């Protein structure tokens, strides 16, 4: 994942207001039917290349083993769902356990990010305090800091604390607003909220905590949605930290478990591997479809991927 500083801000502040709704009108302006057709053709071609690997994956997961690599067709001669049942139980533990592990970790990561990042963002966006500029600059600095520089000392620390093979090392960054992208995203969002709301609440006797909880948090739901979805996807896909900190296969997350299919490269298990790959990607695709709107907004304002 990567993210950004401010250069994009001015361009995107009103990003989707002029675009989306007038799309259909614009298309008819100044383009011949032939041009339109060829453009769609080109787009469909690119789209086909983009989506083909994923379709191939799904189709291979239900093909009989001997058809996977012998037949280009995406439609299997007959549907064979045994890869799913076999793959589910092919590893040390049932795949259900890995899914539960990943889900638990992801849920905690989302909770941690929402709480810690929104608190930090509120302070940066709405409060005056000593050191504000310096701290904000530090936070933006961590955006640029490559994580691998901290890796070795953090690993040593966790190992000395006896926290290897626990989820703590994976979750600490989430509960300490360690993900500066999300803080930045929320700061941007909170700055755009009308200040009069704070003033009015203050006159009515609200302290900063009530203002945060009663006014800012409810208005920031779109930014929280973006954060939540992105956290879900990155935590779900995260491979490096689990690889580093988890060696006990009972604690494995889905990506670590999946990789075992490749370790024990019984070539006969391709189908099972693909089946479990589908299982592992399905939640991401699901979240993407459900939260597309927030994702697109999120990238446009911060450059997250």
């Amino acid at each position, binding site marked *: 994942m990567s*993210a950004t500083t401010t*250069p994009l801000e001015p*361009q*995107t502040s*009103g*990003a*989707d207001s002029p*675009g989306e709704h007038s*799309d*259909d009108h614009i298309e008819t302006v100044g383009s011949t039917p032939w041009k339109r057709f060829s453009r*769609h053709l080109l*787009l469909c071609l*690119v*789209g086909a290349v983009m989506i083909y*690997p994923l379709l191939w*994956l799904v189709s*291979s997961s239900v093909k009989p083993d001997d058809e996977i*690599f*012998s037949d*280009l067709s995406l439609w299997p001669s007959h549907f064979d769902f045994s890869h799913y049942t076999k793959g589910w139980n092919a590893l040390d533990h049932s795949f259900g356990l890995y899914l539960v592990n990943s889900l638990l970790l992801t849920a905690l990561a989302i909770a941690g990010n929402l709480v*810690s990042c929104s*608190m*930090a963002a509120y*302070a940066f966006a709405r409060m*005056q*305090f000593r050191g504000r500029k310096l701290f904000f600059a*530090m936070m933006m600095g*961590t955006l640029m*800091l490559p*994580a691998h520089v*901290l*890796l070795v*000392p953090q690993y*040593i620390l966790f190992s000395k604390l006896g926290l290897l093979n626990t989820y703590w090392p994976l979750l600490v960054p989430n509960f*300490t*607003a*360690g993900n500066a992208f999300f803080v930045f995203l929320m700061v941007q969002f909170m*700055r755009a909220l009308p*200040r009069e709301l704070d003033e009015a609440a*203050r006159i009515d006797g609200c*302290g*900063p*905590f009530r203002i945060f909880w009663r006014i800012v948090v409810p208005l920031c739901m779109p930014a929280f949605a973006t954060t939540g979805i992105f956290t879900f*996807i990155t935590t779900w*896909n995260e*491979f490096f930290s689990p*690889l580093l900190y988890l060696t006990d296969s009972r604690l494995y997350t889905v*990506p670590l478990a*999946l*990789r075992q299919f*490749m*370790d024990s490269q019984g070539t006969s298990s391709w189908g099972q*591997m*693909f089946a479990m790959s589908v299982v592992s*990607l399905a939640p*991401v695709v699901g979240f*993407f479809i459900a939260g597309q709107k927030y*994702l697109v907004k999120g990238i446009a304002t911060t*450059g997250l*991927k």
Partner: protein
Amino acid sequence: MSKSSPHSQSLLGGPEPVRRRPRGQRQNWAAYLFLTPWFAGMLFTVVPFAASLYLAFTDYDLLTPAKWVGLDNFRELFADERLHHSLMVTFVYTFVSVPLSLAVALGVAMLLKSGVKGLPVYRAVFYLPSLLGSSVAVVMLWRAIFGSNGAVNKFLELFGIHGPSWTSDPDTSLSVLIGLHVWTFGAPMVIFLAALKQVPVSYYEAAAIDGAGKWRQFRSVTLPLITPVIFFNLVLSLIGSLQTFTQGYVFSNGSGGPADSTLFYNVYLYQQGFTSFNMGYASAMAWLLLVIVAAFTALNFIAQRYWVFYEND
């Protein structure tokens, strides 16, 4: 929204004494309370950051106490052939895949820019892969598709071309991962798309009246106006792809093979630090990469003066 508040002047008590400050303009302790988790996080960043620099000058294997070795690790860095090779792999990967994927991203964004029926569908299809590109499942999938009897070679056979064994041939294995990177062009594309929509239609109309064709409009209107976004995407992609790990690690099962052809810098760092437990050396490697990333980023920021166009200037 003015974020710079007047409090700095009014604190000096200057010539405008009656200016009423709303209650709680300075809220030090409350703000610090809100920032507590973040402070903890910074502690968790700053201390390891310093420790990492110290470790770079030591020999440390996690079991015996760290031993100060001065510049030995850095001397070793300069003599380590495998490290140079991993740097090469990372550079080739970065300098091929970043421009390529940005070009594709911009091209497709141009196609989508002026409003196409079904834009949300296209955008979703193009964007989805960028969410999956770093997942273990997809890297393994690419291995399978590009295997010697994978789908790609089956497809080439239709045209009578006998494709190489992409994944096991050291000459082609890295290009498979470059392909995977280009496949994830959707993220910069969405950013380009947002920027392109900001270019006022009147600019194009003016250019058209002056007789500029489509290509000329792109060169002289679109491109200059979106240079800030190109720059932005470039910096991000560069930083990200110099630090590639998962793709190389999963693709080669941790070895960087075949024949070290996918030995990304961070894969090698992982091997040194967490397979061989040369943690001092791994720290020195991390700092070298930090310097390289910082240098490229700084270079980018210097170079932008010559090609990035900011309308407000």
